[in-house]
C-alpha cells in the first residue's frame, strides 16, 4: 500500500540539497560493468522498502526502512537499514544522529521481548504469559475501581470519577493508539490521566 501511494515528484525548488549533481556525471549511462574489487556490493539490493516516520522528535522526518522479508506477503521481516526519505518535504532525505541510528533502536539489546512481572519484595523480574499478566492487571484495576470509585460528591452531584489509579499516555504512539487508549481510560472514569506534553 505504501509504495503505491508514493508519487515521486522530485523536488525542483532550490531547497535543501542545493548541491544536486547530475547522476550521469558519475558515469551512469555508460555500459554495465562489474564493481571494482575495492567496492563493496550495495547492501540494499533486494531489500523491501517501507515508508515510515522517525519516532523521535516532532520534526517527524520521513524515513525508509529496509528489511529482509516482506510483511505484506506474510513473511517475517528483519530490519537491515534505515535511511532518510528524499521525497519528504521537511527532511529531504537528511537525518540527525538519532534518526541515522534508528536501526540500533529497533535492534537494541535492551529491547523488551516478553511480559515480565516483579512480585512484591522481589529483586527480580520473572517471565509471565500475556494472558496471565493481562488477567491480573484487569483484576487489579477492577478491584481498585470498585473500592474507590466516587459516584457522587458531598453535594450529591454525580461526578463518576476514579482517582486512585492513574494512567500516563505515551508520546510516540500513534493517534489511533491514543484514541483507543482514551476510550479505555475515560470510560473507566479515570481522571489521573496525563501525557508527555505535561513535561
Amino acid at each position, binding site marked *: 500500500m505504501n509504495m503505491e501511494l508514493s508519487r515521486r515528484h522530485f523536488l525542483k525548488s532550490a531547497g535543501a540539497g542545493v548541491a544536486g549533481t547530475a547522476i550521469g556525471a558519475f558515469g551512469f549511462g555508460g555500459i554495465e560493468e562489474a564493481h571494482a574489487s575495492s*567496492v563493496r556490493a550495495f*547492501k540494499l539490493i533486494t531489500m523491501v522498502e517501507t515508508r515510515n516516520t522517525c519516532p523521535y522528535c516532532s520534526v517527524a522526518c520521513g524515513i525508509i526502512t529496509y528489511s529482509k522479508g516482506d510483511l505484506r506477503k506474510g513473511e517475517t521481516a528483519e530490519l537491515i537499514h534505515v535511511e532518510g526519505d528524499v521525497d519528504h518535504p521537511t527532511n529531504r532525505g537528511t537525518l540527525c*544522529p538519532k534518526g*541515522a541510528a534508528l536501526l540500533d533502536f529497533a535492534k537494541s539489546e535492551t529491547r523488551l521481548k516478553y511480559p515480565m512481572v516483579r512480585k512484591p519484595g522481589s529483586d527480580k523480574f520473572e517471565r509471565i504469559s500475556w494472558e496471565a499478566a493481562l488477567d491480573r492487571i484487569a483484576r487489579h484495576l477492577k478491584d481498585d475501581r470498585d473500592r474507590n470509585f466516587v459516584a457522587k460528591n458531598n453535594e450529591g452531584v454525580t461526578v463518576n470519577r476514579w482517582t486512585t489509579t492513574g494512567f500516563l499516555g505515551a508520546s510516540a504512539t500513534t493517534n489511533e493508539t491514543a484514541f483507543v487508549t482514551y476510550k479505555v481510560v475515560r470510560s473507566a472514569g479515570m481522571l489521573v490521566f496525563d501525557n508527555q506534553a505535561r513535561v
Partner: protein
Amino acid sequence: MAIRTNPPTAPVPAAFGDRDLLRRSASGAQTPDRQLTEVAKLIDVSKCIGCKACQSACLEWNNLREEVGVNTGVYENPHDLTPNSWTLMRFTEWVNPETDDLEWLIRKDGCMHCADPGCLKACPAPGAIVQYTNGIVDFDRDHCIGCGYCVKGCPFNIPRISKTSGKAYKCSLCSDRVAVGQGPACAKACPTQAIVFGTKADMKLHAETRIKDLKSRGYKNAGLYDPPGVGGTHVMYVLHHADQPSLYAGLPDNPRISPIVEAWKGVTKYAGLAIIGMTAAFGFLHHVVAGPNKVTEHDEEEGARLTEGKSA
C-alpha cells in the same frame, strides 16, 4: 536529474569499476580508458552544527560499531579516528581576537581523498590502495598488509590500523553508494546540508555562493580549502577563516606529501609494472610481505623514516 532519489533496491549498473583505476598502490601506472567526472564532498564548516549525524550515518551504513567510551571533558566521541570511526567531529572553542566573540569551530574530520594521495604512494602492498579517475581513494583490505605506511604517508593523519584485523581503515567516500549513484552516507544524512556531494566542479561553484554569503556576514577571510600541496582534494572545506586552517582542530595549513614518499613514488614508477614481484626488490619490505600480523618495529621505523619531514 539531481541525486534526490532514494537508494535502489533493484540491481543497477555500477558507475565505475576496475577499468577506472587511476592509481593502484605499488603497481605502477594504470591506463584507464576513460576519465570519469571528478566527484567531491564539500564540507561547509559555517553551516555545520556539530550534530554528529555524519558520524552516526557512517557507523550505521558501514556496519561499524565503535566501543562505548567515556567522557573526557570534551564533546569529541570517540576521542580520535579509529578503525571503526572513519569520521569524527572535532570541536574547537576559539575567541576571535578581532571581535572578542566566542566561535565554536566544528570540523568533520576524515579522509580528504587527495588527488595526490600520500597513503597510496607510501603503500607497499600492491592494490591495497586504489584511486579511481573520479577521485575516490579506496582501501582494498584483501590486499592490505597492515604495515601502517599509509598512516605515515598521509598528510592529514587519517588511516588507522585495526589491532584485531591488522588492516588499515578509513573513509571510502562510500564508494559502494557512489557506484549506484548515491552520495556518501554522511552527506545524505547531514541535516543542514553542511556536507554536500556532487561533481567537484559543482561543489566549487556551490562553495563560491557560500563564501559570498559568509563575506556578507563579515567573514572577510572566508574561503575554500582545496589544498594544492596534495594536488587538491575530493573532500573540501568552506572555512570562515580560510587564512588560518589550523584553527580548525589542526587542519594542516599547507599539507603536502613528504618528499621521501614522493621519492618512493619515483622508484615505483621506475620499477614499472612488476606488480607482485616488485616488492622483493626492496629489502626493507621483506618483513612486510611475510604477513600482516608480522609487522615489526623495523618496518615501523622504516615507515617513519620514509615519511620523515612530512608537513604538519
